[in-house]
């Protein structure tokens, strides 16, 4: 019990400080009170939203897009990173391109993708999958680069074929690092899902809600939606610790940031 309190107390203190800061800035006029509702009003609006079935559908659509986009990103990113990590020539060829597209702001891809593929779910999935896939590719790449040459030489001396070495060493090495990659990619995927909701012809999604509340000045609902989006991200992050098999979690990658 005491352990639980020790873990939760710093979070409550930090969150409380943030709320206090918000109210202080409102009171000082730094945040115009008309444009920055009280924390209490935001919380009330949030509960209103959570009682609204249509809103819950929006939450579900954003979550679904996040997970589908991330899954497609993983399917492409993991093998790409692995190939780069296992072959210098592939790294020399693909590496600069990966770096280029990783440096490119993801939303800059949006007009091109929409022009090429329209404004359906496929475009939304690509918008999420490409940047998160490239991020995961980086983790996959470094996982392979971390494999010590001595281990490879040892196994090759023991008569393992290249394929056996890949199965015995590189695949587990990637799986060892993958949880970290997924957790880094999750917030990015969620952010892009919200952007996709906003600009890519969605009928449901949190991004759409944000635009609507901003245009109609329903500010408490706007900030409530932002808060719920944050809780959604935190919930997905926490869920990843349940979903990712225990045996893939070790001292090096099993811990949350806190």
């Amino acid at each position, binding site marked *: 019990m005491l352990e639980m309190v020790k873990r939760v107390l710093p979070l409550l203190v930090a969150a409380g400080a943030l709320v206090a800061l918000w109210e202080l800035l409102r009171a000082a006029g730094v945040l115009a009170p008309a444009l920055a509702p009280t924390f209490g009003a935001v919380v009330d609006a949030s509960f209103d939203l959570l009682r609204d079935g249509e809103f819950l559908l929006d939450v579900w659509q954003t979550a679904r897009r996040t997970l589908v986009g991330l899954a497609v990103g993983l399917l492409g990113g993991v093998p790409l990173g692995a190939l780069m990590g296992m072959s210098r020539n592939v790294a020399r060829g693909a590496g600069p391109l990966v770096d280029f597209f990783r440096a490119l702001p993801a939303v800059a891809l949006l007009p091109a993708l929409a022009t090429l593929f329209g404004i359906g779910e496929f475009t939304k999935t690509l918008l999420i999958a490409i940047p998160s896939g490239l991020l995961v590719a980086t983790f996959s790449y470094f996982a392979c680069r971390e494999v010590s040459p001595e281990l490879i030489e040892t196994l090759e*001396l023991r008569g393992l074929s290249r394929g056996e070495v890949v199965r015995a060493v590189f695949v*587990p090495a990637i799986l060892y690092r993958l949880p970290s990659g997924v957790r880094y990619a999750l917030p990015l995927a969620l952010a892009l899902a919200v952007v996709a909701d906003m600009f890519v012809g969605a009928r449901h999604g949190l991004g759409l809600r944000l635009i609507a509340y901003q245009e109609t000045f329903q500010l408490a609902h706007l900030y409530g939606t932002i808060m719920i989006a944050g809780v959604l991200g935190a919930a997905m992050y926490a869920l990843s610790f349940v979903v990712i098999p225990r045996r893939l979690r070790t001292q090096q990658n099993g811990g949350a940031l806190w």
Partner: protein
Amino acid sequence: MLGLRDVVVEYRGRPGGPSLVALSNITFSVGVRDIVALMGANGSGKTTFLRVLAGLQRPSSGERVVSALGRTPRVEFMFQNYRATLFPWHRVRAGIRTALRGRDDEVEHAIANLEFLIPGFRFDAYPHELSGGEQQAVALAISTARCVDLLLLDEPFGALDVRARMRAIALCRKVIMQDRAKAVVFTTHSAEDAAALAQRVVLLRNHPGLIGAEVRFDGGATGGGSEVLSTRITALRARLAEVVERA
């Protein structure tokens, strides 16, 4: 059985700069039931020597010689960086199985070796949960479990405590007696370890690395007899000092 003939290993330096000759004109051979220690100062090329002998590295000139086997020799190499050869995602027991490709005979030997080196060893620990000495013991236990023609050990005892070190030396001797390896070549900085285990000690000089001297012990590897061991250690230290002086 296996050896090196006129081997030179040279590393190219920066463009326009001098190259580094790691090994120069090395001719060496190891026969069946030989236990040879390689000694020399840091940078004298001991690891490079072992790598060329293992076939992991091609010499700049000269050749690795394989005779009388009629097939590719089976070589086992325990790296100085033993930590890097353990599987971080496997507990020790599973790591041993993966390292030895599930060969039951060798896996059983490795487990028995590890129990011998460190009684009560924690087989369900991950490598990062072990001390440096325990990690080295794992690597040594695996290497000495294999049936090979040549067992090469690069600084195999450095992190072991006194008791584990004595047991490790006994284990390496047993490997030859039980014919699990036909010959053993190991590097060490310790005259005590070399004198206790080897019948022959090759002393390398620095810059370039070449064979400065060779010390042979009459009567083969010694299992006990502290007076004999003491004499060997003294003789070895004296020769090593000479070789280092001349470098």
